[in-house]
């Protein structure tokens, strides 16, 4: 049982260490902002010079899958936050249940995105290097560039989700071993920050992929 909490030797108290770990995760997320931000800036820049093509590409995206996935992901963050509240109150069992639900939702997202949506995209010849790319003619270049950004950003986001799934499994494992308590649950907070961030990235990608240019 985690009734006594010790900090590493360079820290003054367990609280000191916990706060520092959280600060570290925030800073790491800042680097991720610059990473995805760079990609999104390239996207916006390329779209500026190829707007009709980009919009033609955007119209081919599967809005229902994207919207459903957004709902799934946002719900998963909510569920995890509830789990965090539970462990703060001392209920590790509920934490584990919440984490399992978050895990399920995350896996559902991945399944819909890569198992269904990407498969449909390939079947509809939307992969940019496809010799029979769906959109031909004047808009082809721009549409292909749109899908370049679509595939890169969803692949990177998916990679981050997979890492998140791994982190969730790690939290579940540690929780089942009784390592968390109201006094110590820093890893739960830190993973929560990461998961929410991946969620926020999706919330930015969603309009860029599915909404912008659709109404033209």
């Amino acid at each position, binding site marked *: 049982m985690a009734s006594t909490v010790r900090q590493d030797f360079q820290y003054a108290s367990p609280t000191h260490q916990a706060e520092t770990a959280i600060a570290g995760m925030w800073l790491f997320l800042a680097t991720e902002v610059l990473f995805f931000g760079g990609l999104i800036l390239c996207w916006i820049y390329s779209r500026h010079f190829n707007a*009709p093509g980009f919009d033609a590409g955007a119209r081919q995206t599967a809005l229902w899958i994207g919207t459903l996935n957004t709902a799934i992901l946002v719900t998963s963050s909510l569920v995890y936050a509830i789990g965090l509240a539970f462990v703060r109150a001392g209920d590790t069992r509920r934490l584990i249940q919440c984490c399992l639900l978050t895990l399920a939702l995350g896996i559902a997202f991945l399944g819909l995105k890569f198992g269904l949506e990407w498969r449909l995209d390939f079947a509809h010849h939307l992969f940019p290097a496809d010799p029979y790319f769906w959109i031909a*003619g*004047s*808009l082809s*270049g721009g549409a292909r560039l749109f899908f370049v950004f679509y595939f890169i950003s969803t692949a990177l986001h998916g990679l981050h989700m997979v890492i998140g799934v791994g982190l969730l499994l790690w939290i579940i494992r540690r929780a089942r071993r009784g390592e968390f308590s109201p006094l110590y649950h820093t890893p739960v907070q830190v993973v929560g920050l990461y998961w929410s961030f991946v969620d926020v990235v999706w919330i930015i990608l969603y309009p860029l992929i599915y909404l912008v240019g659709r109404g033209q």
Partner: protein
Amino acid sequence: MSLWLPAASDNAAEVDHLIGALLVISAAVLLLVFGLLFVYLIKYRAGSPIDRGAIAQKTWRVETAWTAATLVIFFGLFVWGADLYVRLFQPPQRALKIYVVGKQWMWKVEHAGGQREINTLHLPVGMPVELVMTSEDVIHDFAVPAFRIKHDVLPGRYETLWFTPNRPGIYSLYCTQFCGLDHSKMSGNVVVLSPPEFQTWLAQNGGSHTLAADGRALFMRYGCSGCHGIDGSNDTSGAQSTVRAPSLGGLYGAPVPLTDGSVVIADDRYLHDSIVDPERQIVAGYAPIMPSFAGQIGEEDLLKLILYIKSLPAGGSP
């Protein structure tokens, strides 16, 4: 070894003045820094018994002073450099246009009268010259140190560079953007001649075909006249064309309304892209049926076609 670089263009001397001022300021600062350093190293070395007195406590006055002085000097240098640079973006109207295509690893130069040269550029002294440049492959850079100018040369775009040579002579030309294996061999000469000598050179060097005349031949050969009409006039009254295509007479420099509602000016870039990527910008009221000639027509031939189109007078029914 010569430490002297000729200043052979109108702006070269001005750039040299700026560089001279930079040299003087740098030397002054270095003298100050090294001077103080040496004075302190001797006067305040550890064994020196001199009376050091009290250290200044409030240092922010001194700090603010030298920060302000630095800012003022730097701002002055910025303005000077920017002023000269801005003028490099303002070629005079009557500049002599010469076309340059860079490719791995040579410079192809074409005069409007059809004279062609490789790695050499003949120019008349005293006349503003505007180089219109593009690359067939990677990014190169056309540099003439004696004129104190250079500019990157990009694929798929036209970049311009203008100057006025003011001294006859032969000056080095270099490629100064690393472009692969023989980057260091992509050099040549700029030959500045007096106007009569330049005219002689033009006459002697295959000026029988102007670039525009070559462009006319290409216009026919690639079938442009089939839709746009002979001489681009697209007179659909006769049996010339059953396809409705925009007239090209008087097009260069004119505004063009597009199907998306915007209006663009038909400049070199527009004409270039209309040939290699026609479906990107469709003229209002026309269908997107023009085929693309990307990959079929090289950059040099594109220049000739564009010059031909530029030469077409306005008139003829659309």
